[in-house]
């Protein structure tokens, strides 16, 4: 606006216009074609090159992971090492509860009966009602662990329709029962078996990285799920090769590391650690 002269070169150019025109596709018309400053800005704002978008798969994987963490109401991960992963789950959980509570309930109702066990995600959901339903326990008892511990076994009568849940997940007031609860969550945990499609995306993003980046990536929340699924960071490579051999063997053959064994029947020996 007020700056009409630029660099003493004498070219009367509005710098704001120059800055705005840098990203436009057509050549800037206001100044002569030979103005090197225009060329420089246009070069700096040139259309994207292929390698600048190399992180797209990883970003999409992060997007999926963030949504996934929110969808099945965030069961606690058994091997959660990093606090940030907890934060991700928590934030996504809050968001999902706030925006999609009703939809979530509907989805759960519509799910085909793949698992007879109750949905694992809300631990307190299916477990808490059982003592109340059977024993007619007042609600306040659930709050005091000492009373709950002593009364729960005596009051709850077996055979009242809680048979399977009784052994699998005892009443929450009993503190020593925490280990079985976690185990149950692991077996039927969200995405531990069903979501190999998303896993393969994560795996692709993982395998595309260089050695140095892989190590770093496994410490990020986006890939935390892979670490959990593989049962440890050192197993991720073998796990991913297994997953991709099932879901997308062609991709694996093309991109996979040279250590990937050729599998005719879709099964990969899981002994190839990196």
């Amino acid at each position, binding site marked *: 606006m007020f*700056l009409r002269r*630029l*660099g*003493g*070169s004498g070219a009367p150019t509005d*710098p*704001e216009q*120059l*800055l*705005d025109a*840098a*990203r436009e596709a057509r050549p800037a018309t206001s100044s002569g074609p030979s103005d*090197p*400053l225009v*060329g*420089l*800005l*246009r*070069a*700096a*704002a*040139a*259309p*994207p*090159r292929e390698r*600048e*978008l*190399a*992180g*797209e798969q*990883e*970003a*999409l994987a*992060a*997007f*999926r*992971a*963030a*949504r996934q963490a*929110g969808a099945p109401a965030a069961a606690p991960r058994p091997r959660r090492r990093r606090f940030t992963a907890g934060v*991700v789950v928590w*934030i*996504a959980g809050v*968001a999902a509860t706030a*925006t999609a509570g009703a939809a979530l309930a509907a989805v759960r109702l519509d799910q085909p009966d793949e698992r007879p066990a109750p949905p694992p995600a809300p631990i307190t959901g299916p477990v808490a009602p059982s003592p109340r339903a059977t024993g007619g326990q007042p609600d306040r008892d659930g709050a005091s662990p000492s009373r709950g511990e002593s009364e729960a076994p005596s009051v709850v009568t077996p055979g009242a329709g809680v048979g399977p849940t009784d052994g699998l997940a005892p009443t929450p007031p009993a503190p020593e029962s925490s280990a079985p609860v976690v185990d149950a969550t692991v077996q039927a945990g969200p995405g531990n078996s069903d979501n190999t499609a998303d896993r393969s995306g994560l795996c692709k993003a993982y395998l595309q990285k260089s050695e140095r*980046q892989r190590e*770093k990536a496994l410490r*990020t*929340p*986006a890939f935390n799920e892979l670490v959990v699924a593989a049962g440890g960071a050192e197993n991720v490579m073998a796990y991913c090769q297994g997953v991709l051999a099932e879901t997308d063997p062609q991709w694996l053959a093309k991109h996979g590391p040279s250590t990937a064994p050729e599998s005719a029947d879709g099964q990969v020996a899981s002994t190839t650690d990196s």
Partner: protein
Amino acid sequence: MTSELSQAVEAAQAGDEEAFRFLYRSLQPGLLRYLTALVGADAEDVASETWLQVARDLPNFSGGEFRAWAVTIARNRAMDHLRRQRRRPALPVPVQELSELAGDADTAERAGESIGTEAALAMIASLPPREAEAVLLRAVVGLDAETAGRVLGRRAGAVRTAAHRGLRRLALLLGERAEEEAATAATPAPPPRPRTGPQAPHAEPVDG
């Protein structure tokens, strides 16, 4: 452009992966170039940290300019990165690394431009940090002065002034470069190799 973006933001918040991909493709190139000026070769790492946080916090994004929001995240991640780095032995100025990347002279020739993208970015990165950031946010990321000011925590007028100063300095640098090229024009060797030597005195630590 902006309305297209905000539509995509809404769709991505509702879970549309393609919309998120669109956001990524629209923003990532400019973001990466901006980050390269801030943290040099680590820009890709910082960019992926940024997208991680964008993906995670997108449900909480409550409107406004998406690009400003994302660029602010990127800038904070870059500053964190530089703080971490400062505790380790000092690294060379980003411009050094940039000049190694500046081998896209043929791209520049094909596009009919006088200078390649990497060389142009290296030249902008050699400006004083405030000017470099203002020029990059305005011209490369495509923010207007008000939005860039919000990202940088400064008034729009200050951003304009910094960008104008930066442009003036760039024009001078380009003049020097042209003179040097004229001096070596007799040699048939590939001429558009960018010269970063004369700019070295301008380089300063990025976060002041």
